[in-house]
Each structure stands twice: as C-alpha cells, then as structure tokens.
C-alpha cells in the first residue's frame, strides 16, 4: 500500500504541567517557521500548576493554518494518562508515540525518552529527545535545530547546552529510524518568506495593539486567561514608558483606570468574566462621566469560577448589558492575531474619541493561540489624542451636535476639569434639574448614534449574495473559514463580526436577504444570535453551540456546516 502524501501535519503533545511541553512547543514552532513551514499552535490546560494533564497542538503545513483540528496525526504521550485524556482524538490514522517504559498503546511507536535522556545527561532532557524526534519526522535536519537550542539555553552554561544538543541529536536519530513506520509521507513545501513572519499569541497582540493605540498605563488584577496581557505589558514596560500596576481587586482596577484616563493617560484593563462582573458599576461610571475606558476581557467558561483555564464565549450578554442605567459602549470581537492587534488599537482610538468604554472580547483559546502571522503592517501613530487645552470657564460637558464634548485634563490649560458620577450640568457639577437631566440623557444617547456610524462592518467571505449565511464572531472566525470547502463557499456567505456592538447596520440587510441563517458560537444559549434577533428582527433557529470548555474544532464545524448546507438546500 503506497503511503498517503500529506501537505500538512497535526502533532499533539500531552503530559503533565511541569514536564516541559511548553519548551518543546515554543522551540519547535520557531524551528518550523524558520524552516519555512506554516505553523500553528494552541493549547489546553488545567487549572493547576503541577501535575494533571495538558496538551498542545502544533500544526505545520504548506498553506497558512489558523484553526484547531481534532484530527491528530502524531500524539506524543509523555504520560500514560495522556492516552485516556485524548482518547477521542485518537483515530485509526493517529500514530501514538511514547516511551514503552511508561506507556503502552496498540501500535505505539516506542521512543525511550527516559533512557535516551538519561544517556544525554539526565531525565530533564527528555523533552529535547522528543523535539529531536519531531524534527526528524518532519525531515528537518538536526543541525538546523541546534542554534535554537543554543539560544534558548546559552544563559545556563555550555554544559547544559551540550547536553540538550546531545539529547536532541539522539532523539533525531531515533526519530529518523522510525520515519518509515509512519503511515504517511510528508511533503510540506518550504517558503523562505515565512521566516519573516511573526509568532505572537493573542495576549501579546492585545498588548501590542494597545501600545500602538497609545496605551501607557495598564492596571489589572490577575485572572486567567486575562493575565497574559498584563504579563506582556509588564514585559514591554522594560523598554517602554508604561505604568504597570497590579491592583488589590477588580473594582480598584476599573476605578484606577478611569482616574488614569481622566488625568490624561490611556489605560488598559485586562480581566476575565468574574472580574468584569465586578467592574460593572465602574463601567457605568465610565458611561456617566464620559471618561474613556478600554477593557480587554478574555473569556473562560462560567458561571462563577467555572473552568478557569478553558475557553468559552459566554460573557457577551454581560458585556452588552453590564452596568446600571443606559449609556453607550463599543464591543470588539477580534477573530485572529491581526484583528486582535488592529481592534485593540481601534478600541483606544474610539474610546478616546467617543469618551465611552470600549471592550475587546477574546477568549482563552484566542489569547493562547499563535501562528506565523504576516504582521501588522507599518505602524501608524494612533489617532491624535483627543484632549484639548482648556480655557477659563471650560465646560467638561458642553452640549454639542454629536453629543461629544471636547475633553480637557487637569493641569493642561486654565480651565477646571470637573467630572461627576451624579447627574451633572455642563460644568460637571451635580444637579437635580429635570431639564438638565433630559439634556444629558439625550447627549449620551446621541453619542451612541455617532458610535453607530463608525461601527466596523461584518467581513463577508464566499458568496455574498448566497441564500445561506453562516455567522460567527470573535475566535470562531478561522475555524469556520478553514472548515468550509471552496465549493461550499460558492453557495454560502460566511460572515464574521469583528465588532458585535453596536450591531453594524449592514447586519439587518444581510439577514433580511438570507434564507438560511446559522450562527456558530461557543456558549450554550447563543448570545450573539439572540442579539442579532433583537437588533435585526430576524429569527435565527440554526445555532451550532458548544460549552464544554474547548474551542470549536475544524471537524465539528465542518460536519455541522455540511449537514446544515445539505438540509437547507436539498
């Protein structure tokens, strides 16, 4: 039987926290990219620091890869429990690789990680043995990989470097000897242009986008999966002018961020659902005082503590409606690394311009995922900071046509900048006049109109005129696109919403024209579908929903869409 030739491969590494999977993953991903392969990596992990069972998926191929696939070509099990944990991903096509000292599985390719590592200087080198074998499987020469190892461990001294390289080489040789046992051959094209591309995960992209948007202040209380952005900002603060402050609680966080904006900084807040819930009152303060705010919310499954390290898109309703009273807001939902960057930057520009809160919604899946990205283009300075020098008699809440009053900051000019959480008059002082109240309610409402005019349109792929419309938001963007064949795209429009609120006006048209509408989102009720129903007046019966803490897989989406399209059209 001639072997199948494959242009891409999906490798899954599974082991316990602390076994060094992360090192394999990041080094291997770099190697793949520098070798000229397209690469994609994502992970799932438990809410614990050691032990348990975590896994990382690495896909490499000739074409750009952007989505999580359940299909597994190689499963590297560093722990017996890995087999059980990933049972559902082991098909007849899956090759399990493990150390037969510890693990047994029918048809398993045995690599004595332990013994080879011990030979190379100690058990800790097992992950390098693994890395070596992986390089061999992908036909990457060991000496191509060596410099990466040197760079990684140089600080630890030459002996450590040497041992790691020994382990890598031995692993590579072992791997080489097993290649023939693989049920497929690989034929991944190399493209040297890929080397120039970026490996940046979602968290880092938020931080970079924020800085591009002028962010110079981050405050947060740690909360998975929102913490990554705090850590990235802290890292970037080593070379850039950014105040980084960990606050005592999330209520302190949002109020501190509003203080920072008030004084003239551009502050970012990062959190997850529970933290965002605690910020609800502060969100309302942003709305009332018209102080800009930018909040990054990395979603995880709720309610309450839920599954702290897993993924979901279940906080949309909270983001849309959290906070008491009526006030305008903007909600962005990037679908990939480039959008994360661009929309975070935009969130800063728009929050500043509209003097209203802007929320960027990601999820654990998106912040922990990366792939070779073409990058963010030439950096352009953020839209001019919308702050004016005040004159005596300055009125913070002057009534204007579009509801937006020129914003001053204290100490810049001779005016007084007075902001008030009570209803206030144009000067910012407390009032109980119902006339003034009406004017101010009206002013805040007007801003929503201005905001609406600047909403980002949905992105349509496929046949824009098709009767079938498949909708996603946020992190479902690429899994939907990759799941669909080009044939399917001829008879369906795939619509991704980078901004979910205000719902772009085009949405209503789109839905009105469509005959068969499906929404795909990672929560149990279909919160975005509900929003579209409400705003567009079209019922959306077909929903692919999920709530088990995992990202949508290509396979799930592909099967569902194929079925949906068949039944609707047939």
């Amino acid at each position, binding site marked *: 039987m001639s072997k199948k030739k494959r242009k891409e491969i999906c490798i899954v590494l599974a082991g316990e926290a602390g076994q060094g999977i992360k090192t394999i993953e990041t080094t291997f991903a770099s190697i793949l990219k520098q070798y000229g392969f397209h690469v994609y990596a994502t992970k799932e992990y438990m809410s614990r620091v050691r032990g348990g069972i975590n896994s990382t998926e690495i896909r490499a191929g000739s074409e750009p890869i952007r989505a999580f696939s359940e299909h597994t070509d190689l499963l590297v099990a560093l722990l017996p429990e890995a087999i059980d944990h990933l049972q559902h991903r082991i098909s007849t096509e899956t090759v399990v690789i493990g150390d037969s000292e510890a693990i047994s599985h029918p048809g398993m390719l045995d690599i004595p990680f332990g013994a080879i590592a011990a030979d190379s200087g100690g058990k800790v080198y097992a992950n390098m043995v693994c890395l070596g074998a992986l390089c061999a499987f992908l036909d990457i020469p060991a000496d191509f990989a060596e410099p990466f190892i040197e760079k990684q461990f140089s600080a630890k001294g030459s002996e450590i470097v040497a041992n790691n390289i020994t382990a890598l080489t031995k692993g590579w040789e072992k791997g080489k000897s097993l290649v023939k046992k693989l049920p497929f051959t690989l034929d991944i094209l190399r493209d040297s242009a890929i080397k120039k591309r970026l490996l940046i995960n979602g968290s880092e992209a938020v931080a970079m986008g924020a800085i591009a948007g002028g962010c110079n202040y981050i405050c947060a209380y740690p909360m998975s999966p929102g913490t990554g952005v705090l850590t990235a900002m802290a890292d970037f603060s080593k070379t850039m002018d950014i105040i980084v402050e960990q606050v005592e609680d999330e209520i302190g966080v949002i109020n501190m961020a509003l203080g920072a904006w008030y004084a003239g900084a551009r502050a970012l807040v990062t959190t997850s659902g529970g933290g965002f819930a605690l910020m609800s009152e502060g969100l309302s303060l942003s709305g009332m005082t018209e102080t800009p705010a930018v909040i990054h919310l990395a979603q995880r499954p709720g309610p309450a503590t839920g599954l702290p390290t897993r993924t979901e898109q279940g906080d949309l309703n909270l983001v849309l409606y959290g906070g008491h009273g009526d006030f305008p807001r903007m909600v962005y939902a990037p679908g990939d690394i480039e959008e994360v960057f661009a929309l975070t930057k935009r969130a800063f520009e728009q929050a500043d311009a509209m003097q209203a809160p802007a929320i960027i919604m990601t999820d654990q899946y998106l912040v922990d995922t990366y792939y070779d990205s073409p990058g963010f283009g030439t950096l352009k300075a953020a839209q001019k900071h919308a702050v004016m020098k005040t004159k005596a008699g300055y009125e913070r809440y002057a009534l204007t046509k579009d509801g937006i009053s020129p914003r001053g900051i204290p100490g810049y000019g001779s005016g007084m900048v007075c902001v008030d959480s009570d209803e206030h008059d144009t000067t*910012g002082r407390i009032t109980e006049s119902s006339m003034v109240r009406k004017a101010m309610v009206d002013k805040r409402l007007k801003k929503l109109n201005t905001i609406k005019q600047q909403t980002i349109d949905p992105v349509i792929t496929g046949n824009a005129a098709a009767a079938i419309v498949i909708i996603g938001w946020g992190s479902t963007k690429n899994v939907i696109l990759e799941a669909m064949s080009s044939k399917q795209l001829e008879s369906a429009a795939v619509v991704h919403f980078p901004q979910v609120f205000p719902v772009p006006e085009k949405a209503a048209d789109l839905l009105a024209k469509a005959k068969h509408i499906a929404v795909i989102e990672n929560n149990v009720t279909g919160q975005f579908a509900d929003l579209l129903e409400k705003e567009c007046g079209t019922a959306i019966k077909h929903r692919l929903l999920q709530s088990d803490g995992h990202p949508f897989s290509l396979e799930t989406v592909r099967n569902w869409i194929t079925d949906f399209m068949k039944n609707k059209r047939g």
Partner: protein
Amino acid sequence: MDKSFEFAFDDIAWCPGCGNFSIRKALIAALDELGLDKTKTVIVSGIGQAAKMPQYLDVNFFNGLHGRGLPPATAIKAVNPDLTVIAEGGDGDMYGEGGNHFLHAARRNPDITLLVHDNMIYGLTKGQAAPTTREGMLTPVQVNGVKANPLNPLAMAISMDVPFVARAFSGNEKQTKELIKEALEFKGFALIDIFQPCVTFNKTNTFKWFKDNTYYLDKKYDPEDRVAAFAKSLEEEPFPLGVLYRNIGRTTFEEGLEVYKKNASPLTERKADLKKLQSIIDSRR
C-alpha cells in the same frame, strides 16, 4: 483669574450647622495659604455628604463612585505627579465600602492627602451606622444598638505604616486648617481623620461631645515612635487630636515607578514610541 479655591455655589446641600462647613472653610484656607495653583489641584471623592466637598470649591475634581476615591486618586497622581491630589470622603465611603482601597493605598504610599469626615454615621443615606459608629448607638437599622466594634482608623493606619496619620476636629477650624497644610506638604500618603458633628443624624456624638472628648497632643509628643503612636491611637474619650504618627522617608508610589526613574516629566506629556514597539514586534520574527 482669582487665585482662591473659594467658589460661590448657589446651594450647598449640607444641613445648617453641619461640621462640613467648617471643614470646607479650613480646606479652602489651607489651599489658599499654601498658594497652590488650583488648575494643578485635583480633589477626588466618592459619594456621601462629605464626598460632595469638591463640588463646592473652585478646583478640578473627579467625584466618582461611593467608596472608590482612592484608586483614581492614586492613578491621577501617578500619571501626572505635578498635580496636588486630595482624596476626600466620609467614614462610610473610605472605611466601609472603600476599606480595601484604603489598605492597599497605604501599602503603595502615593503622595496624596486623604481627608475623611468622621461623623460616626451615614449622613446622606439618613442615619445608619458607619464603621466608626460607637457601640450601642440606636439607628433605624441598628434597632438594638450597634454591636460591632467601631473601626479605629488611626490604629489601622499606623498598623499599615501610613506615614502621616492625624486626627482633627472640625470644631477647631484653625487646627484643622493647619493639619491639612501639614498633610499637603508631607510627601507621602497622609491621612487626616476629621471628627465632624452630623447635627441631623448623630445626636450622640455632637459638637459638644467631640469638644468634651478630645484633647490636643502637646508639643512633647513624639509621633515618630510607631509603637507609642499605636498606643496613643487606642486612647478614647478623650481622643487625642493632632499628628499621631509620622514616618518620614517612605518612598512614594510615584517615586517607585520605573517611568520616572530617568525622566521626571509627567507621563501625560510623553509620546508613544512606535520605534520601540516595532522592535518588540520584530523580536518575534
């Protein structure tokens, strides 16, 4: 432009006879006498009768949420250290709803002055117990009298090493003014807990009661001995007034910020450095 912080608000919402009027006078006098530039002064407050203070001064203000004065005050000072920042609120505002921020502001030590109007009651919401309400007081909610220990703000502040801890009595405008001046000139987090009679809801801790139950620390008192200051802070009826504790030299929050290590200009005056961002991005290639 008139330099005074005085402001003619047509209708101050406090009750006639309320201690807040004296605090307002003392505060305006302190600011005026120090010759501070009002365009570079910000008062941050929460919600309550006390927290309305900035509304009645000619000054920049951020009158935010109940209990949440300190976090924005800390950020404002950090973002622009050229500003003089005062946080102000009631005993409920700062020690009740906002208690956690007090603890952690104490740890950070921003260079701001915190004025707490301690009327031992919730004024604006009509007479429920505050954290500082004395045991046994009857209120519409504490119908059998307050049972919990009153919070001792000075003892708590000293335990947190707040570097300037004082108590004033609104009935003595001059001493209050002098203490406010001292606090404003102190570098670091400076708390003044100000006894303030609430003539409407606190019929126990009246002007007379405060007068009869307080005394001024004499010149010989040494506020730099932390343990002695703690012992002093436990004294009640009579309560000592004046600076109970002072710890000169604690690094402030702003001083500790890396952004000011090599460049003293306020963060607000700096431009984003896209080249540095580009090089961070490029390091991911």
